[in-house]
């Protein structure tokens, strides 16, 4: 069951950019693409914990600011030759507001 919670106005996150949401279990990065889709991923690069929200967003990917690993925003999978995966969370935009799934986030805190 989804339990959408309202996070913020879409425009608070720049196009091709990201902001973080603090949770008890670390930060979740909220990305907004050029096409106004939003994605939520753990703000931690599988390589050496780089803060993904500080990366450069292009297409539906982000490049980690520390050593340029490229990560898919949709699947969390590391692209190219490197390997790894970042957890992703349901996120969507409704009426210009960003919504996250609370049930999912809580499940993560427990896990």
């Amino acid at each position, binding site marked *: 069951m989804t339990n959408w919670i309202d996070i*913020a106005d879409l425009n608070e996150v720049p196009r091709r950019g990201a*902001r973080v949401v603090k949770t008890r279990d670390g930060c979740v990065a909220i990305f907004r693409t050029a096409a106004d889709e939003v994605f939520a991923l753990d703000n931690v690069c599988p390589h050496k914990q780089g803060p993904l929200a500080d990366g450069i967003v*292009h297409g539906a*990917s982000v490049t980690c600011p520390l050593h340029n690993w490229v990560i898919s925003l949709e699947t969390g999978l590391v692209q190219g030759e490197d390997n790894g995966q970042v957890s992703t969370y349901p996120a969507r935009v409704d009426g210009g507001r960003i919504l996250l799934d609370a049930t999912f*986030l809580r499940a993560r805190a427990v896990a």
Partner: protein
Amino acid sequence: MTQNLIIIGAGMATGRAIEHLVENAPDAFNITLFNAEPRGNYNRIMLSPVLAGDKTYEEIITHDDAWYAEHGVTCRFGERVAKIDRAAKTVTAANGDVLPYDKLIFGTGSNPFMIPLPGHDLEGVIAYRDLEDTERMMAMGPDNKVVVIGGGLLGLEAAAGMAARGVDVTVVHIMGHLMERQLDEAAGYLLRKALIDKGITVKCAANSKEILGENGKVRALLLDDGTELPCDLLVMAVGIRPNIGLAQEAGLAVGRGIHVDDQMITSDADVLAVGECVEHDGALFGLVAPLYDQAVVAAQTLLAQDAQFVQKEISTKLKVTGCDLFSAGDFADGDGREDIVFRDPARGVYRRLVIEDNAVIGAVMYGDTADSNWFFSLIKDKTDIADMRETLIFGPAYQGGDTADPLLAVAALPRDAEICGCNGICKGQIEDAILAGADDLAAVKSTTKASASCGTCTGLVEQVLAVTLGDDFVMPAAQSVCGCTEMTHEDVRRLIKSQTLTSLAAVMQECGWKTSCGCHVCRPALNFYLLADWPLEYQDDPQSRFINERKHANIQKDGTFSVVPRMWGGITNGNELRAIADAADKYNVPTVKVTGGQRIDLLGVKGEDLPAIWADLNAVGMVSGHAYSKGLRTVKTCVGTDHCRFGTQDSTGLGIKLEKALWGSWTPHKVKLAVSGCPRNCAEATCKDVGVICVDSGYEVSVGGAAGMDLKETEALAKAPTEQEAIDLTIAFVQLYREHAKYLDRPYKFIAKFGLDWVKERVVDDLDERAALIERFELSQSIYRKDPWAEHVTQKADSYQPLANLMLEAAE
């Protein structure tokens, strides 16, 4: 028995429904047709050609009086339905007439949305919906100014229609690019260009604040930034809202529109609804194609036939002459989705297909939409395109054969096909030149001039060479900027200047980028080239910058940041040091280090604390040291004549002057300077990008040193008798470097490519060029010589904080 059918609204949807009814069961219903507009059904979408003068109103009438008479439709035009009594099954007209019905159809369409700006009720503020609005616009001529708010389909058709009448039109659009719902940025850019060519002024990312009036009549539109746009008429085309008031009063179920089921029946079994006023399965409608389907389903339902309305993909085309564009489906980026982009800069063509699971799910086309129907059918039919993926983007003509090779397409071109648009060179002339001995690009360029101007046709010329020479020609493998493009940095820089490309979207289009919005390699480079070449026109894009430059601090391996304030020429004082010490305590800075650049680094500051620590440092006058930037870093100095017994000139003073002149400027790579007071060179000036050594007779300026991955000693640029000349030479050199170097080339690499003599000719020998370089640098500095810390503290501090804090939420 004949039933009474009353229809509310003679619009595009109900017109189609009536046709279907009278053709299939002429005697089933007594039809009464109400319309609030004083006329019957006409083709509303053709109002734009009427406005532009391409058609007359008479030509767009779909049903005339004779037609209604012939089919026994009772017309009550210019009459609004005022009330419905569903229990009594009657309709009350505006004049009080009460009419009984057996079946009722709502086709009330939409109301244009008017932004409730102050002044929106002034005379001369109109929407664009009906013939009256169109006539108001047609009354405008070359002496009039009109502002159109809204850069969507409707607003642009209104603007283009009036521009065709010679009206001075300005389109004000709130989003960053036109028709953002149908087009991606690249196509939006091309559209904007085409509209500007038609003489229309286009203002994107512009916020309207107030409509100004005079004697109750509109006078001008005032924007947020204070700009006033004078106008005699203001057209708002910002969206529509389903017209559901009457249905709501009658107690029908409504959401955003009147709720209907698949048979177009509302919550009352005897009442149907079609067109823009309905909401079906959560969706609203704003284009005619689905409305026609609805109309036919409604008619079939009334005739007790089995029919269902199914939502389909829809596509958009713009009816502005000369702007060929098409969009359909979903064209957002996404994982598992693949983009195929084709750009033909010479013809202004852009095509983008979005592929998912071997099917086309979205398409955007600009410039050449001839194949749009074919692509649209691929989307609708979810055709498996696996077999034609390679050639798909070229359209149907390239399918079914083995013409996947672009060389074959070039080979097939006739001899009179134009290759170089700038110089009017045809394929035949290039072939002749090749046969006469020009066997590489340079030779073709010098003998025919093909590709010698803007250079966009370079690839084509090379293909002609390859086709003509066969195996004798080896395609040059120039290093492209990144995987998004075939072009080199040099090509891109040249095109940005020669084609006046002033936005990222413009560069990506004209240089044939293969991705929709670049990547982390090309975007920072393009952002630099654009701001270096067009300081006034281009707006820096923080999202195309590496985090250090976006957040004006240096990211550390644990995600914290280091903060380095400027210490002009390495000079500081008690106040500054106290502020640094206080900041170190207040923000729990784990490491305070003296850098190799004569200043102090606060390492390990939390991202959220950045605006606060900057504000504290700003308070004693310290500004960003740009220790994170591809820009001016430090100017190291020695103590010079102030204290040293060997000092010949005021090296500290000159260092400070240089740092104050150059700080804030962005450069292809970092730039470091040093000024030593004598040849003992305590400031290590001979391994800097620009080094100055003071001597008795003046200043020796040398350039191209480095002490990083490569160790390079500077080479002498010139000797300057005065301090001012030393400053001028330095600034002119830095500007030359900014204008020509490849992104991430330090000055020594730039000099190696262009030659020190080439640099000297411009910076030292040609005094006019030196002055011009300095002038261009100063122009850029009028924008960029500002403390980014102070700017972010006042304008962007919030963006450094988390978007939301769910600590409690997650704890539940």
